[in-house]
């Protein structure tokens, strides 16, 4: 990692990783005059699940939303720095933001299926990007996406029912299926389980584990057990800064920065 701000502790294993899927360098985000993310640099590897943890309001969601330029939709938000996907700067004027968002999918905190049928929820992305060639092709995409999201058996007989009629956990898995239907390279998840009960959470966690390796996954979570269970890399944020970034077991068993240790041991946050 090049010229990280002084206070960031990056574990040796993660330095100079040059096969990273996405890299962020000195990224700062402002809401109006307020700085929500302060010069953060990080590499996201395609073979692992990366977890962002930190106290509420520290800028995790804001930073995550830089990776697919969702901050563009907020009028007062301004992003500085450089983020690359496979070596291409995603904030470059030549980058098409519509394609970027297909390549870098997103799952939101609150399940947000479209008020359309289950089938249509999945088929929508492939259709607007022209991915499916025929109806049978589309059927196949819908089936594989739902199967990968572990939802196929529950909904295969009711594909034309409204997506909003599913339970919360099913809705969230539907949203994950919708994201993977366009065959993204990276999936960003912002607290995907915070609205779910423990059983639904376990299903989503299992699903994340199965998706690992196929997609680069970045997950924001408040739940440290969850970070420990599903991720291999953990980044700890505090007050807009990246405090420490390292392998998950290291962060949880042997944190190097004082602030990380205080947070892990529950002394603040």
């Amino acid at each position, binding site marked *: 990692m090049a010229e990280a701000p002084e206070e960031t502790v990056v574990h040796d294993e993660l330095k100079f990783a040059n096969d990273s899927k996405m890299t962020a360098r000195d990224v700062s985000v402002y809401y109006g005059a307020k700085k929500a993310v302060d010069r953060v640099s990080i590499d996201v590897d395609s073979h692992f699940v990366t977890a962002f943890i930190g106290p509420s309001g520290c800028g995790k969601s804001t930073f995550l939303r830089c990776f697919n330029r*969702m901050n563009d939709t907020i009028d007062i938000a301004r992003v500085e720095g450089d983020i690359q996907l496979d070596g291409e700067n995603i904030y470059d004027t030549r980058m098409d933001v*519509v*394609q970027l*968002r297909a390549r870098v*999918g997103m799952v939101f905190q609150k399940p947000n299926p479209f*008020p359309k049928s289950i089938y249509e929820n999945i088929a929508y*992305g492939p259709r607007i990007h022209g991915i499916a060639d025929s109806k049978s092709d589309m059927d196949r995409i819908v089936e594989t996406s739902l199967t990968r999201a572990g939802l196929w058996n529950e909904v295969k007989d009711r594909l034309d029912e*409204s997506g909003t009629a599913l339970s919360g956990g099913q809705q969230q898995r539907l949203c994950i299926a919708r994201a993977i239907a366009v065959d993204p390279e990276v999936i960003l998840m912002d607290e995907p389980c915070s609205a779910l009960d423990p059983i639904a959470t376990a299903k989503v966690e299992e699903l994340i584990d199965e998706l690992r390796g196929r997609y680069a996954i970045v997950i924001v979570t408040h739940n440290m057990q969850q970070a420990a269970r599903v991720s291999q890399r953990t980044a700890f944020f505090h007050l807009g800064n990246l405090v420490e970034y390292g392998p998950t077991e290291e962060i949880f068993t042997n944190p190097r920065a004082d602030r990380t240790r205080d947070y892990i041991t529950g002394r603040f946050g």
Partner: protein
Amino acid sequence: MSSAVPQDEQIGRGPTAWHSEAMRRRVRRRYARERRFRALGLLALTIAAGFLAFLLITIVSDGWRGFQRAEVAVEVDFDPARLGLSEADLQGPNAQAMLNRANFRALVRDAASEQYGSATMLSNGAWLSVRDEVRGDPELLGQTKRLWLVAAPYVDLLAKGHIDFDMPPERRGVSAEQISDYRQLRSADAVRLGFNSGFLRKANSTNSELAGVWGAFVGSVLTILVTLAISFPIGVMTAIYLEEYAPKNRVTDIIEVSINNLAAVPSIIFGLLGLAVFLNFFGMPRSAPVVGGLTLALMTLPVIVISARVALQSVPPSIKDAALGIGASRLQVITHHVLPVALPGILTGTIIGISRALGETAPLLLIGMRAFVSDIPGGVTQPATVLPVQIFLWSDEVGRGFVEKTSAAIMVLLAVLLAMNGVAIYLRNKFERRW
């Protein structure tokens, strides 16, 4: 009971006495207040419903007579010689012209005079239906047929029982001869009250018994179509632009405030604007539905913009995020996700605005739609009037026959408005079911 619960040290007071007399009194007072509030609400509802019922009853009790008219039976001899028509004329290519030239007026007048001594009991326009009779059935030529013809206004008044015989003759509005004529007709069984089909088929006329609302109805439809065609697309596009594209800054704030103020501008101001801009500046035709429609569009536009913006704002942002997050373009987000969800609200707002425009009188008076128009308008540039203006004009007429016509026209207008509201409800339910 209270001794069983230990004193709460931290709050520093005893347990709440839920069963004390003071608590009971508070509960009773709360219930009493609730009952009074409900009674007040019921009272308000009763008063509102009472007003509505009163309005409807007055209009309908006056108005249903407007759908009836007195008719007098006349034995008409379709004598080819007197009409100057032959069978061949009616078969030929110029049949319509020949018919229009034939003197049906004299034929009917003479027939009535022969039977009743004069033709005063017939309407001035009674012969029109006789001509229509021949137009429909050329075989009639040379035959004699008993026809029910539109009666003169005084027969109408007498037949409907509007005349009080105890009043002195000079205030009665009907002379003694007219009454005796009428009695004579009655005894000959030559008067009846029939359905006034002309009221729904004809345009305005100076004779109350011949006047109809169809011309005004068509004028209203043409005007409203122009209004809709202009204000709906412009209003919805404006709302979409302001909600989804425009940056939030001083300029858009000012635009927003202006639109809100525009919705509160009295409608007559829009009439003056229409007069100044469309008639005087652009020189568009006076009294034409196109000008009326444009003027009403100016008035309706802010209503549509505001209701469409509210409908767009009520679309959950999470749906937009979901669509953007999967790589939908801004246009796709709007057309695939935002508009379908907002459509019921937009349509409801539009129909409310259009209904208001449909009932509008003042601005249309200013752009000349108060002219007397006896033809049914055939296009948006031809002179026309609209239902509310027609009602206004008739309510101003002195002839007694126009009183019930006014109420009858109000019934037609109310029926149109009810139908439009029905459409609004239907559309809302239809599109909302997709949730």
